[in-house]
């Protein structure tokens, strides 16, 4: 499970990751708690998946100015 903390553009993040398929790694939106979004993933290496998420969001035209955190959920 990956946890993404983002205050804004949560809907866009969900849409982005639900359609993401990078190196065979996929994400599926599970739930939202406040500013935290939780995604199931098929990735075995959660750190790598979290970095992938960070890069994917940063690469979006709307993502470059977002202040967010992506990390394996505890």
């Amino acid at each position, binding site marked *: 499970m990956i946890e993404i903390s983002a205050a*804004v553009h949560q809907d866009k993040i969900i849409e982005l990751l639900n359609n993401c398929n990078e190196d065979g790694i996929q994400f599926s939106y599970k739930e*939202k708690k*406040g500013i935290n979004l939780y995604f199931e993933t098929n990735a075995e290496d959660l750190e790598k998946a979290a970095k992938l998420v960070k890069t994917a969001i940063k690469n979006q035209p709307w993502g470059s100015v*977002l202040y967010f955190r992506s990390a394996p959920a505890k």
Partner: protein
Amino acid sequence: MQGLIAFLERYFLPLAAKIGGQKHLVALRDAFIGTIPATMAGSVAVMLNALLRDLPPQFFDGYDGNSIPVIKQIIAINGYVWSGTLAVAGLIFVFSWGYNIAKAYGVDPLSGGIVSTAASLAGITFSFSGGISGLNLDAATVDAINAAGWSATSEGITAAGWGWLPLNNLDANLFFTGMIIGFVATMIFVKLMLRNITIKLPDSVPPAISKAFASIIPATAALYVVAIFYFVFSKIVPDMTFLQWLQKTVAQPLLGLSQGFGAVVLVALFVQLFWFFGIHGPNVLAPILEGVFGVAQLENVNLFQQGGADLVISKGYMWVRGSFDAYAWYGGSGGTIVLIVALLLFSKRKDYRTVANLSVGPGIFNINEPIMFGLPIVLNPMMFIPFLLAPVVSVSIGYWATMWGLVNPVSQQVTWVTPPFLLSFLATGADWRAPLVTLVAMLASFAIWIPFVMAANKMDPDLGHEDKIATDIGHDTKSI
């Protein structure tokens, strides 16, 4: 809160994204970041000299680092590092600037960097002149000096020469000229490249040669356009180079404006506002933070190398990019290390104390994501006022302490992960008063945070964290 979030997402974020994602502004930001290996190495050299040469005389009478074996050699070595980095920081920047513009357009970045550098250098004076008067020279000396190519009379000497690049045209003074000339030249280069106005070689030619040849026509055109501009400018303003003129009419007034209390507070306030709403403040404000305050900082670093803190005080800038880190952003933006301490001392909430405990380690190194998102501070109405107010008060303390001469201005580039007190000590060229100013700013912040930490004690912890925030910002978790 729901309405505010919707408003931000609809109206403000697209604008912030446009600024933060604007190709040229991103290239500018990356150009500044690209110079960090050089500027940081140069800063280490200047800082070592500050510690070995400039700090000890404050405590030991008669100390002269330049006369002590080993110390003397280290100071000399540091001088070499400075010469290749901060002394020519502008030159390094213009290459990085052209490189990043070309990269943003998918054109050969190496050529872009070269075009930007060549265009910026083309406008720099290659000559110098100077004189000494009030002398009493004998005829033989006058003849010898005149024979050497200089001009002398019995009363004075006028020296002039060609083939010199003045360092004050290659350091931070080159930034503004480089931003304009480097941009224009690289854009001409880029546009011609994209229109394929290039020399095409057969596929059998190695890529490195092919790329260089492809760049010839666009680079030549770009450099000629800039050269014609310089020529016309020299006819209109014969007494100054473009760099000198731009420094006088644009750069210095702009940098002067940045030194006003209002400008400093406004920047601090906006950075906090951006952070609070989950937007990367320094990214959005990079053109101001790096393009104005960062340039002022490099100017200070060079002044320090040339004449120590006294020269920075007399000729430098009082408030620069690193001043924010030294006096307001300890523990990360918002001065959150103080909040962590306040939570550990006064919070009765288990969730807050847990987050604070986890945030201590990263916080010492000015990394505050754990507390920003863990508490959270982002979008937490309870934290809005202190998160905005504490850094503004801290900035004010640092600003006025510097303006009133209670502490030296920031004159060193220190990496932002340096722990708070050490950061301000090093950033001011080892001024022992700087950590004290940081401490005063921290205490003021502490006083601002305490009431809000104690008020949070009265909130039901079960309602005070995620569920409460979810309600506040109106996200229905089941609707997606």
